[in-house]
């Protein structure tokens, strides 16, 4: 089910973060982690047969069974912040590539071991 899928995505993200040494792959892993977390948070507020928390001319009063709107609001915040961190990470990746000519963290030599 969706909730297990969210936790699986979190675990895949952690595995990627631990094993990869390419910066782009690390950022992708971070995004998978984040996606799993968002799916999990949304699934906590899911109600079977519930409708989207928007009043329309069809679903027009507050007595209906709505899906919990609070996790959705929190996830919207998390998505925007994820976008910001991804953009900053990719900018770092490009500036590292320009300085060292590689995206692999293992191949970057410092002044002591280079």
């Amino acid at each position, binding site marked *: 089910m969706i909730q297990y899928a969210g936790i699986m995505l979190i675990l895949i993200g952690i595995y990627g973060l631990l094993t990869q040494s390419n910066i782009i792959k690390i950022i992708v892993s971070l995004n998978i982690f984040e996606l799993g977390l968002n799916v999990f948070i949304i699934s906590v507020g899911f*109600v079977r047969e519930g409708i989207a928390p928007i009043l329309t001319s069809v679903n027009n009063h507050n007595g209906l069974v709505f899906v*919990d709107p609070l996790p959705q609001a929190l996830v919207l915040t998390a998505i925007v912040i994820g976008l*910001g961190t991804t953009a900053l990470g990719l900018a770092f990746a490009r500036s590292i590539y320009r300085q060292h000519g590689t995206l692999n963290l293992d191949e970057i030599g410092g002044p002591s071991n280079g």
Partner: protein
Amino acid sequence: MKRIFALVLVAVVGILLFSGIYSMEGFPRYGEAEVSERVSMSYIDKNVTRENQEVVFGVSENLETGSANIVTSIIVNYRSFDTLGEVTVLFVSALGVSLLFGSFEGRLRSRYKPNFILRTGSKVVFPLILVMGAYIFIHGHLSPGGGFPGGSMIASAILLMYLADEDFRVRIDDFKKTEGIAGAMYVLLGLVGLMISNYFLSNFLDTGTVGTLFSAGIIPVVYVLVGLKVGSELTGIITDFLKGEVE
């Protein structure tokens, strides 16, 4: 070796997560969340500070928020301070990106020239995407969407123009000014609310009838500001990423 170690660690974390979450007392099983016992119920009924009253689309007037989209009413009214922080985080990351690309010169060029259909078609689609983006953030309190998706859509229109035309440049200073003014206006709106009804970012305008365009008080105003801010910020990020020449 590293991979085996990582697999073991992930397995341990997975077992802890599964056993921890699903043995927890009161954690709802999937699809059986009791919304009526949560704090969210007062957001749905719009009775956080007021008496209980029925909310009917197109009929009820002068409610607490007057927004038909309940998620929007949480984001821009009940937890608006949170959204101000979120917009600030986005601003700081855009600032960081432009700092990192400060020493890059020129513009990235694709190995393939944009063909005739892309060049002509993009000019037809560009205004339509802009109008759609504006529609989404103006109707944020009535339909799914809001300032963040609308702003991203505007930035995607600019990205399309960058892809279709190699010599296309936006006047980035104007976008920076728009962003600054929109952000400052958001804070000013909050301060006006502080002056009128004694707490920051309070909904001091008349909330109108649920489901009409001019309703929900300051929610549409804030979402237009957020849409403009996010759109210009993401345009700035895209412009920064296109800097630099590949040797």
